[in-house]
């Protein structure tokens, strides 16, 4: 999973911080906290239908998460599964830095999901975070699945940003304003490792050079007024730009002549998000209500490229190739979900999602025609029981009405999630 040496050194840095702080463990902030999140899943497709929403099929996935033979599993497999388990190590370096190393694993693979350090000593409301981290755009993106209210990632996050959301190596700078209401501005420079938003077709013989990084920049703001003890709101705006997007790579034959095509250009997104929480003050979450919603729009300014024949190696290359017509793909997605504490330790939740309300996608081949594809919808309901704080058992029902030929489908997911060890405080 660790493809680049940058990542390796970042990991080494994070581990270094963790072990360094163990030595200095007599300082207040330098506890090392280890936590393990274990998950068990049972998934059953009650009736099958279109499995991937039209226009979002394989938009630049360079690793086979859903196919199961490389990396750890994120898509659900029929029957039992270990789900998404995590080992997290949080540590501080005195009052200077906080560090985190988070490994995601299933029964055969381990991946570094987070390895970062974050300052807690800069003046004037500034913080810097460096390493591999989950971007703070939107709301769900920066959260791990044990703190989601549903067993699966929102469609908009999965299909516009990837199976891990927007997760990358880079630098984040935030500034919290010295205002009475919470207001945060942030900027991220990310390497752009070829995830869904900044797809890159790694075809070394065809496209020799990826632009030098960082290839992705994002900006976000969050705002939260003080509404007293019962109510709380946080609103967010975010946007981002990837200066290199390479998708739709294809090598085919015209007669016996090999030929190479790809879509090359850039992409950008904008989104709004909001979360409202009502806190009843009763024990074990009874009467608490949480409503979350996000909308994201992505546009890709692309051109159709055809490969050039190179005498030296007798192959077709996209580098400096013939640029065809330009076009802009546009897609979006939205969800709204609500979770209510019906009884102490019992929650019920409903979620409605739409993907591709705008769904202008290149049709493939040599054409530069855009197809206006239909939107996909998904409706979910869940019941969660938390016998004790670190354990929950969830039953979720999904009705998927995806655009495509095979019609709608229904599925049920049972999820058991256990947090062991230090259970860190959760962000809002």
């Amino acid at each position, binding site marked *: 999973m660790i493809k680049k040496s940058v990542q390796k050194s970042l990991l080494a840095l994070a581990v270094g911080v963790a072990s360094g702080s163990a030595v200095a463990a007599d300082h207040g902030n330098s506890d090392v906290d280890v936590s393990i999140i274990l998950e068990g899943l049972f998934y059953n497709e009650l009736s099958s239908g279109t499995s991937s929403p039209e226009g979002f099929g394989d938009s630049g996935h360079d690793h086979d998460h859903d196919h199961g033979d490389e990396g750890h599993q994120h898509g659900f497999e029929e029957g039992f599964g270990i789900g998404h388990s995590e080992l997290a190590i949080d540590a501080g370096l005195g*009052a200077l830095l906080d560090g985190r190393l988070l490994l995601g694993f299933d029964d055969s693979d381990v991946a570094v999901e987070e390895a970062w350090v974050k300052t807690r000593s800069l*003046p004037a*409301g*500034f*913080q*810097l975070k460096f390493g591999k981290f989950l971007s703070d755009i939107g709301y769900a993106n920066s959260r791990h699945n044990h703190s989601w209210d549903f067993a699966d990632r929102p469609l908009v996050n999965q299909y516009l940003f990837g199976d891990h959301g927007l997760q990358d190596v880079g630098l984040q700078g935030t500034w919290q304003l010295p205002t009475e209401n919470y207001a945060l501005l942030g900027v991220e*420079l990310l390497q752009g490792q070829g995830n869904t938003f900044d797809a890159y077709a790694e075809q070394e013989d065809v496209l020799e050079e990826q632009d030098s990084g960082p290839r992705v920049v994002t900006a976000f703001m969050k705002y939260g007024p003080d509404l007293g003890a019962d109510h709380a709101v946080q609103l967010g705006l975010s946007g981002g730009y990837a200066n290199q997007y390479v998708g739709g790579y294809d090598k085919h034959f015209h007669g016996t002549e090999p030929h190479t095509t790809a879509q090359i250009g850039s992409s950008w997104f904008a989104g709004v998000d909001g979360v409202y929480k009502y806190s009843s003050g009763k024990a074990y979450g009874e009467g608490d209500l949480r409503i979350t919603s996000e909308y994201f729009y992505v546009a890709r300014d692309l051109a159709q490229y055809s490969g050039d024949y190179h005498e030296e190696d007798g192959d077709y290359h996209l580098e400096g190739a013939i640029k065809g017509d330009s076009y802009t793909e546009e897609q979006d997605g939205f969800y709204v979900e609500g979770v209510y504490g019906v009884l102490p330790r019992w929650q019920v939740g409903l979620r409605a999602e739409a993907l591709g309300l705008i769904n202008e996608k290149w049709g493939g081949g040599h054409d530069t025609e855009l197809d206006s594809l239909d939107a996909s919808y998904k409706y979910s309901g869940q019941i969660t029981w938390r016998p004790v704080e670190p354990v929950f058992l969830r039953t979720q029902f999904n009705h998927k009405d995806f655009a495509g030929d095979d019609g709608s489908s229904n599925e049920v997911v049972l999820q058991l999630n256990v947090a062991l060890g230090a259970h*860190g405080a959760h962000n809002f």
Partner: protein
Amino acid sequence: MLRLFLFFIAFLPILNASAGEPVRVVVTTNSLGMLVNEIAQPLVEQRQLELKVLASPGRDVHYLDARPSFMAAVRRADLLIDTGAGLEEGWLPAITANAANPDINSGQPGRLSLAASLQLRPSITTTGPHAGHVHRHGNPHFNIDPLRMAKAARLVARRLGHFFPDQKALLIKRSYHLEQALKQTAEYLSEQLIPGQRFIAYHEDVDYLEAWLPVQNIGYLEPLPGLPPTSKHLRELVEKHQQQEPARVLYARFNPDQGARFLNERLGWPTYALPLEPETPDWNGYKELLQVWANAFEQKS
């Protein structure tokens, strides 16, 4: 892109806040707010000190959301006073790690975690087979003991003195008066009670009443701090206490009352739902609360 980013970072500190502002003190609970308000009352009145309490009094301080408004308050705080010993660990670390305020990091003058300097009641989870639960650093609910609050008052006064060096003598003097008031009230209320009364508490919190009232804690409805009462545990309590002298059941208002009702039905013991924090962060609020707690027991006639 990198250059643009660095420019952004370099440019923003110019917009920083100006001088002449009050000293901003943020506390997690009304009990701690009472200490600050009473000790620094003249400074509060002259608006040299601005106090903000995070938790609303009716809430379980173990389980709060790390709200945006908490983040904004801690971002601007000069001094953050928390209970410590894990009471606020479900939410406060998420605030302090992200509030971008180096002044309130542990070890700084701007951070006072009171439990670290107090002798806490041991918890059943401090040692032994249940070690590592929510009260692993000892029972953090010392605000229910006015005698420990008197000790906390002195710590608060000294720390406030760091921010108001010219007023240090005044602050120490006021904390001395507050200590006396706390001790005298505790003594007075204690004398009113018929000694030897026994009680079961829902959580390891009101067992601190044992520290200043002539009463005795004989168990908890929770099998372990933070674990909801199980029917097995409740049945065991009933069996254990069936043949003994009657006692009473005390629980916080935000706790569910089923466990207390169960004991009431089986053993006929009276039950009391008590507030754990004063309605207002001042001496009157806290004094009333001491009276409410004492009233959960039988008074001498």
